[in-house]
């Protein structure tokens, strides 16, 4: 069953077409990796899925609902079923790491404070940050911030997790740890949409890969299928094991 569907999505910024008639289907419980060089519209695609951007043309369906046509409470309901890990984590820098994770719980549940703090601690423990609850985001390293961002994205146990460049700026060991966390989430049934230009990471996490180039999907399939693609650019990209 489809969790996400993009139908003929087109988006331009200042006259430059970033997404050009993109059509995609992402199945429930699977990990979908969107590959491509910097500036090809990968992050823009993610922002369309969660409704931060609206397409100039086309539709974005999440669980059958057209996100591009929703607003207010309906959009909020759809967003609650999704988590978003930003490239730079985008932690709220005026509150502690723990309160960052607790924030969605405080907004969307009527749980008592003690329970919210317990759940936030448990989410932080899942990403190995159980001792960082009271620290401010500025006190964390890049990798820790990303893990804290992942804990916040998972706070409401979303069905769909959108991840923007999980390994960008991280050392290989930390990047592999993040990948393992994503694989675990997939095993628990979460649908993953991962934007990356890190091919080893995509091979490890993704069930299905697609490559975006100049706003268009130029290849789609398993990692092995993309390795054997007729397109020279796709084969070259898949061979760039050190990318990222």
């Amino acid at each position, binding site marked *: 069953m489809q969790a996400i569907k993009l139908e003929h999505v087109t988006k331009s910024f200042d006259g430059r077409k970033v997404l050009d008639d993109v059509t995609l289907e992402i199945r429930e419980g699977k990990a979908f990796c969107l590959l491509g060089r910097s500036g090809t519209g990968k992050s823009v695609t993610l*922002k369309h899925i*969660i*409704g*931060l951007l609206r397409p100039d043309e086309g539709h974005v369906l999440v669980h059958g609902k057209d996100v591009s046509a929703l607003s207010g409470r309906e959009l*909020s*309901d759809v*967003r*609650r079923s*999704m*988590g*978003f890990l*930003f*490239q*730079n984590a*985008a*932690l*709220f*820098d*005026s509150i502690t790491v723990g309160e960052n994770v607790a*924030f*969605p719980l405080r*907004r*969307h549940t009527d749980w008592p404070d003690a329970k919210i703090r317990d759940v936030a601690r448990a989410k932080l423990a899942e990403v190995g940050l159980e001792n960082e609850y009271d620290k401010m985001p500025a006190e964390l390293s890049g990798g820790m911030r990303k893990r804290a961002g992942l804990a*916040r*994205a998972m*706070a*409401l146990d979303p069905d769909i997790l959108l991840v923007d460049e999980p390994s960008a700026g991280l050392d290989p060991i930390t990047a592999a740890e993040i990948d393992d966390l994503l694989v675990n989430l997939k095993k628990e049934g979460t649908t993953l949409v991962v934007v990356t230009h890190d091919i080893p990471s995509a091979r490890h996490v993704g069930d299905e890969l697609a490559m975006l180039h100049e706003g268009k999907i130029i290849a789609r399939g398993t990692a092995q299928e993309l390795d054997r693609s007729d397109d020279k650019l796709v084969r070259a990209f898949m061979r760039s094991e050190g990318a990222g």
Partner: protein
Amino acid sequence: MVVRVGDLILTFLAWVGDTALFGARALYEALLPPYEFKETWRHVYEIGWRSLPLIALAGLAIGVVLSMHTRASLERFGAEAMIPAVLAVALVRETGPLVAGLLVAGRVGAGIGAELGAMKVTEQIDALEAVAVDSFKFLAVTRILACILAMPLLTAVIDFCGIFGGYLAETSTSGMSMQLYFHRAFSVLQFSDFVPATLKTAVFGFIIGTVASYLGFTTTQGTEGVGRTSTSSVVLSSICIILINVVLVKLIFLLFPVRA
């Protein structure tokens, strides 16, 4: 040259239009649930309570200076007894509200602009939306409401501190007693002196909150943009306060003609 000036005026008018729409939307959404009481109250504390030392100190200093100037003028006519009354009317009607507005524009406007601007360029505003929180309501509406609520209170404080500062200057010069000073100061003040002038600062608060929030939400170009937003918030909200004050004073004179 003429074309350039014309372009600048058009750009400014477009900015005024966009900012006014932003503010109108904030007022409309403030009426719709969910109501962010907790967040609004937190900002009233941040904006109001934390501005108190600056406002109180400024009020005291202005009171002292105004008292000295008033004495220098009235002494010539042998009207020193009028000093408390003249000072109180000047402070409560115009000096207090305007100075409070400009001080808050400097302290709070810069803070709101920089904070929201930094949140914008670091994707924290997007992150709020991603966790299904209405960022406009949570960040902008709460700050604008807090400015509207805090400004009249801060104005009352600057008025009182100014009058008290005038007393300190007066008693050190002429030895006037506190009882006599405050009796003379408050005996001339009426409802139409205090209430409209104080309430007009709610409009100043609306301007400060709206201009700073709008600039914060539209910040681009990284940390350089944040710096520009912070500066622009102070400059533009101060200009708007000074200009709108002319209209408001005229309006008060029309509505309260007896005391005008």
